[in-house]
């Protein structure tokens, strides 16, 4: 009886998009990890076989989420958050180091990355906090608490150190903005990023002169609206000192590999066999796909294993090589449809909790999607984040599935709540 209720109320469009993406993702992992020129046997010990197992395990997880009482997620959000933080702290004791980052638990042959799940926990607690009618993000006190909820895991994850994952949490600022955070936070962030990049490309002194001229013009035109010139002066000083500090930071603070990533992004003189190798090979694989691609299982770059980590963070290069621009367009359209659908559903929610949570899910997924693809085609520094539903790995597949299906469950319950 209950089953029927659920199947009537859940959003099948989202589930369909999810299923298509997961299956397409698995096909791509298969193409990357099937050994070339061998007799065909389905091998569960290889990555495509393991991913198949991960996918099968998601089915009970999905059912568990759909049949549990949806109030659990709201009520126990603090508990989930607490467990998440505990897991992150536990990494300092029990964690396994992988590529210089201590962000894994290892149980026999089974690995587990807690930060993937912490994302959902943070989203839940944030939603819970904002669902309180008294909370008004226009006020400082509430802002601080919201920032603290985000900030604690960010600090812990930065200590692993895993800057990529930490950055994903920062994207929640869009959610806060939606819920009333003043716009100048976003502007400050946008200006800071722009200044950062420009300061690396052109000399700070030119950048600052340029900004100064711009601000003077801006002030002259807006004088009648009674702006305080002191504010202008302060903003200018802030930007100028930031621009100089970027140069300084770049030289003194950044690790060599971080510098390399930025240099690669900016197309500065880099060695294509060393620090530029990943990006170069990734662009070759994607670019050689052309309009229609080389055909499924026919990618020469994929078969040759030229792109590193091609089954995880670089999975999209295989789509580009074997399916071409048309394949990329299709996959990206599916993702964008999913994001828009989630946002649409979120806005439809009756409770603030569900709405904020839906927003969090969409923001997380989109940030992963954008950062992952943009780094492959030199629009973003190389940061190791997985492509949701596509990249190989149990933790990430389960984490994203749980994250998404909690929202589907919340959405399904919207009618009979309260």
């Amino acid at each position, binding site marked *: 009886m209950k089953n029927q209720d659920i199947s009537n109320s859940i959003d099948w469009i989202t589930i369909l998009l999810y299923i298509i993406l997961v299956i397409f993702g698995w096909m791509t992992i298969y193409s990357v990890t099937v050994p*070339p*020129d061998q007799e065909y046997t389905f091998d569960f010990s290889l990555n495509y076989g393991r991913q198949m197992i991960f996918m099968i395990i998601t089915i009970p997880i999905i059912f568990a989420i759909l049949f549990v009482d949806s109030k659990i997620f709201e009520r126990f959000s603090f508990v989930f958050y607490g467990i998440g933080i505990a897991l992150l702290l536990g990494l300092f004791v029990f964690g396994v180091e992988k590529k210089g980052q201590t962000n894994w638990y290892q149980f026999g042959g089974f690995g587990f990355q807690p930060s993937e799940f912490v994302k959902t926990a943070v989203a839940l607690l944030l939603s819970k906090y904002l669902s309180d009618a008294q909370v008004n993000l226009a006020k400082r006190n509430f802002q601080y608490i919201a920032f603290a909820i985000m900030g604690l895991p960010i600090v812990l994850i930065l200590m692993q150190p895993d800057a990529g994952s930490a950055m994903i949490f920062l994207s929640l600022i*869009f959610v806060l*903005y*939606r819920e*009333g955070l003043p716009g100048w936070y976003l502007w400050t962030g946008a200006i800071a990023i722009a200044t950062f990049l420009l300061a690396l490309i052109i000399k700070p002194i030119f950048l600052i002169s340029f900004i100064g001229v711009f601000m003077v013009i801006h002030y002259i035109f807006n004088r009648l609206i009674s702006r305080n010139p002191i504010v202008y002066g302060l903003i200018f000083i802030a930007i100028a000192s930031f621009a100089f500090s970027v140069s300084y930071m770049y030289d003194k603070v950044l690790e060599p590999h971080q510098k390399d990533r930025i240099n690669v992004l900016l197309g500065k003189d880099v060695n294509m066999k060393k620090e530029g190798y990943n990006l170069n*090979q990734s*662009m*070759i*694989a*994607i*670019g*050689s*796909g*052309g*309009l229609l691609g080389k055909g499924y299982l*026919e990618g*020469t*770059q994929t*078969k*040759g*294993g*030229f792109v590193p980590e091609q089954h995880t963070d670089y999975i999209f290069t295989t789509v*580009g090589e074997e399916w*071409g*621009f048309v394949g*990329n*367009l299709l996959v*990206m359209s599916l*993702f*964008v449809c999913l*994001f*828009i659908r989630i*946002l649409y559903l979120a*806005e439809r929610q009756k409770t603030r909790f569900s709405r904020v949570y839906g*927003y969090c899910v*969409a*923001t997380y997924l*989109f940030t992963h999607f*954008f950062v992952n*693809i*943009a780094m492959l*085609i030199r*629009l973003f520094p190389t940061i190791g984040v997985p492509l949701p539903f596509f990249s190989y790995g149990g933790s990430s597949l389960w984490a994203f599935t749980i994250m998404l299906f909690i929202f589907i469950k919340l959405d399904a319950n919207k009618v009979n709540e309260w």
Partner: protein
Amino acid sequence: MRKTLLPTIIIITSVILLARLFYLQIIDDTLKIKSENNAIKIKYDFPERGYIYDRNGKLLVANQPSYDIMVVPNEVKEIDTLEFCRILQITKPEFLEKIEKAKVYSPRLPSLFLAQLNKMEFAGFQEKIRKYNGFYIQKRALREYQTKSGANVFGFITQVNDAIIAKQPYYKSGDLIGQQGVEQAYEEDLRGVKGVKYILKDKHNREIGSYKEGKFDTIAKQGSDLTLSIDGDLQKYGEELMVNKRGGIVAIEPSTGEILALVTAPSYDPALLVGRQRSKNYTKLYNDSIAKPLYDRGLLGEFPPGSPFKILTGLVGLQEGVIDEETSFSCGPGFYYGRGAFMKCHCPGGHIKLNFGIYKSCNTYFANTYKRTIEKYKKPKDGVNAWANHLKSFGLGNFMGYDLPTGRKGHIPTSKFYERFYPNGGWRSTTIISNSIGQGEVSMTPIQLANMMATIANRGYYYTPHIIKSIKGRKIDPKYTTKHVTTIERRHFDPIVNGLFDVYNHGTAYSLGVVGLEICGKTGTAENFAKINGKRVQLEDHSEFVAFAPRIQPKIAIAVIVENGHYGNTWAGPIATLMIEKYLNKKITRKDLEKRMLEGNLNYQYRKLYPSKDSINKPKLTKVDSLRMKLKSKKEIEDEKKNKATGKKKDSVKK
């Protein structure tokens, strides 16, 4: 605003990503090329070059395995360098240098370490190869010559250069190609077609399978074997006879136009241009500008044909009807043909008829015949043209169209030539009378002379000379089986052939005859000149001989030129006769003559061409010479004194 910000960002950034992808995947082509370089390796399968046989099926040119040692620098570990170097006879610095060079190319890919080891060198290395990690053997085929003769016929194999690659895209850097001789002429038949395999490789350059299941791969096609018209024994014998002489021999089978022997002297052992020593030896041969061993005198040497040309003068005279068998001219001996102009004649003199004129090689007879031929026409212009047209029907004055890659036209002057030479006119038959006896403006190559004799042997037709007899798997060019008929009627040949027969019976080659063989021949002694230290000097005459045999149903026509060999019957005649006897009887009866020819040495004549000034061939100084150079001659001492005196004067003036 707050609701729409995130969807807007999602759409805008996705469009930016797609635009970037569109640029990379559709507009920018460089990534596709990089991808091919990355992942696809082209492997060539070189087929074995075709073998070359002589007309009797004797193998002349085969292939031998040769072994290249390849090295993968990354795999070279813990080897006994000293022992390794000793086996391969290289020094340790050489070893390190080669490894370093290979590393620069690629530490993971095999690159050439040492090229073209022969069987012996390879055997020593093979025993120990398992001890040398990172070294591999790659087998290649090199030419193996079963004979020491015929280098000019075969040509040689060399690596393609950039110019060839630019012109013929079939060849890639490092490929081999035939140069000169049949290796060049029949390159496409001999080489076959190399197979191409597209192989997928991974990031470590390991092969991981074929590209697209071998859809674009092609299978190598074996090179075809060639059978040449050359008679291996005759070729060898010809080269032996020409040792220490310069010149050429061309022998043709008249009934087919097949070249039986093509000898140039001096020549070289074809094995010199194979293997590790190839480029060193080639440079040496190439730089020998005196003996020119790479220059095929049988095809490229343009000589004044001399007396053999009288045959053609006679034939043209008969055809034009200005003489017949009974026409006689009086010889003084000699021939006055103008104010004080006189042509000497070696014949006994008297009233000379055609037959006698040929076998005694009477200049007067043929000068008169030529004069009459030209003067038959009102204008000398028409006469010369009529004469030239007859000669051109013998294939003279032009490339013959044979299947070897080098050649010269020779020269048969037409009226145009003389009009340019004498722009104001005033030239007539006597001006150009030297042509009648094969001097003057006519010149021919030995192969043209041989073909002329083949034409006469056939009594009026010839086949384009060719060196190919058959190619496995395809027919030879039909132009070699097409008959070329001359403008001289068949009936005019008989008196001439009789005259040539009598050359051996009681003519200029009287002493050379072979018992039981009816040989028709003609001696020739061609005057020639050279510039030595800027002066035009007349050198010793070229010794020439043309012949065919037997008289009825001839089997061989031959032309022999021995440079600066004096009379036709001193060198060229005996050599031609021996060649004919060798070919027809397979054995030589006149051992003394043979011995004289084999041992004959004309190098003293050739030295005249390059007196001491020539830096390449400086004569060795004797002790007396060097002493003389140290002691100044009286004159020199006087000159020096004078110079000093004038120098002092100048100095004083300055002061």
